[in-house]
């Protein structure tokens, strides 16, 4: 289960809160109103301090006792690995102006350098516990190759190389011939939104 922040929980619909409550095995969830579900979840996940601080004046919390027995330690789940044996640095294209850099590297702080071919185009320090970083390109670079290195405590990791996406029509359109057929919208395919 992900670690929820109270803000996130508040933005959820009742149905979504219900499914979290179900996962946390909160008793009596079927009869709870939305605010009660939120409180019960917050309590179970040890977020109630925050909740109480924010809403103390307006709500009564007497019924929180109902979920008292569901202590977080009773619901402890298998943790996902925090690291893997092989160190790595990887680059994933997100869109023509954004790439995700991610790493598995031991140490505290490192320096990432971004290259296009042989040319260095960016350099910055990262806290290695972040595990990833979104690098915004100064401009789109259609079909250029991009890769990165990570220097950490005398070691250097190199990433894979990606071909950056294009967001430009790459020749002049022949006049009067096909312009109307190129009035396309990028990402205008609405099909995926219907998928449940």
């Amino acid at each position, binding site marked *: 289960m992900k670690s929820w922040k109270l803000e996130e929980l508040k933005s959820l619909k009742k149905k979504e809160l219900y499914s979290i409550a179900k996962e946390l095995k909160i008793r009596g969830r079927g009869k709870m109103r939305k605010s009660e579900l939120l409180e019960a979840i917050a309590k179970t996940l040890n977020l109630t301090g925050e909740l109480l601080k924010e809403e103390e004046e307006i709500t009564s919390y007497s019924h929180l006792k109902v979920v008292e027995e569901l202590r977080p330690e009773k619901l402890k789940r298998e943790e996902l690995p925090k690291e893997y044996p092989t160190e790595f640095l990887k680059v994933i*294209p997100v869109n023509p102006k954004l790439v995700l850099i991610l790493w598995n590297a031991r140490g505290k702080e490192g320096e990432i350098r971004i290259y296009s071919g042989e040319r260095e185009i960016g350099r910055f320090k990262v806290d290695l516990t972040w595990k990833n970083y979104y690098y915004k390109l100064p401009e789109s670079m259609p079909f250029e190759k991009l890769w990165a290195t990570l220097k950490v405590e005398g070691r250097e990791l190199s990433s894979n190389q990606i071909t950056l996406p*294009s967001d430009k029509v790459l020749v002049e359109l022949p006049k009067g011939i*096909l312009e109307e057929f190129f009035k396309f919208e990028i990402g205008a395919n609405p099909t995926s939104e219907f998928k449940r």
Partner: protein
Amino acid sequence: MNGYLLTVLHHHLPFVKHPEYKYFQEEHWLFEAIVESYIPLLQKLFRLTSQGVKPKLTVSLTPPLCEMLADPILNEKFKEFLERSKELAEKEVRRNRGTELEEVSLFYKRRFEEIENFFFQELNGSVLKGYKELQEEGSIEIISSGATHGLLPALQGVEEAVECQIKVAVKNYRKHFEREPKGIWLPECGYYPEVEGFLKKYGIGYFFLDSHGILLGKPLPPFGVYSPVKTPKGLTAFGRDPVSSKQVWSSKEGYPGDPVYREFYRDIGFDLPLEYVAPYINPDGSRTYTGFKYYRITGEVPLDKKEIYNPERALDRAREHAEHFLNSREKQCLEVKGKIGREPIIVAPFDAELFGHWWFEGPEFLFNLFTRLNDSSIRPTFADEYCQKYTNLPVSQPTTSSWGDRGYFDVWVNGENDWVYFHLYGMALELRRLKKTIEKNPFSTRVLNQMLRELLLAQSSDWTFLIATKTAKEYAVNRLREHISNFNRLKKWLISGRVPEEEIRKIEEKNSIFQEINFWEDWPCP
């Protein structure tokens, strides 16, 4: 003759199988898709074939879907679902006798009887065989996809991971269809130029891209998306026609929003008293769709103001829409042909589940479209058939792209779901390391096979999609956590040299996709 229409129906659902539960909500994605989309589509395709019409429809059936359709446990559960639905249909006819809902209740009763009949009599209880038969007759062409619908550009940092998605998919295609796939539906149309090396290696000749994948290519090909392009590596790429997709799916002008069509959101699972619908919804009491929907879209009115659905009127409208769609394509082809001096190809790809499941009358629309195509100025075609006719395709390098929202990978790689990739890469590199260090024997093979299944299942683009769109987000997160945890538990057992038999058996029974998998062959060397 003015042009060609290449229709692609992409069939995909993530692998969802929960033998540990008698009823599991997310398994219904499959059951609903079977009764609402796959069977209605097959009914129409069989009818076309029996009338001597070859629809020449291109169909992708992804490996997870094939594996679910062939799974005995899921098949049993599907039959139970069908039984329950039939029982509800009969109850509904009794409840609605003499009311304004009588007609539409009878319609559903007949419909479920027909579906049941078709499933057992025509398909012999196997949806997959229906598609296979149509391919053997030459009515449809089935293409491959990624092994678990992994978004390949996001996996490219470990090359074996991408190669494995393709290799396992091709192997699975052979298992189910007993031939080699000629083309592929790249999951989410997710493309990056280097992927072609792997496609070529496994005998894939063509693939599909969203419009901008072709139109922003290097250089812009002279016929735009009205001809496929030859890539520098020698494969053929087809680009989606933006005009025809919009006509079908635009939420404003699109056909499925017509007032006479069936309203999706008004369902008796939510409308009727809990004690009445209880046996047909989630046993924990949470309401869900039953498939019994009695109202039509009507217009911009609240759900309780919808008017009663009239199936006949809706089917008439589907015929009119098919006619309209075809006329528009004829006009479009005529115009484009005049400008480019050759017969254009119009590529119209859709998610198959939208026909029937979402757009209830969609299969009827397709039936009418293919019937009418027969005597129109355009012809249905398969990808390689068009390429045999036009061998001098423009050469262009398509761009890295997808068919998702905003056109690239923002949907699957963002602040909500990017934590996944740390694990996907960590696990992939573990397999690389273990392949070099672990001795091959029956024990290690068994454990590594399951580790590979767990990694493949975690790679499905569905999970990151569901997290980003906040639909079934918790389920998606749980599935990812499950596969990552399983992978690491299996690894511990592998290294310790001992497995708790009962635990591993449970994992193998549940995440049973790809029984044919063989880690040592299927996880390639870098």
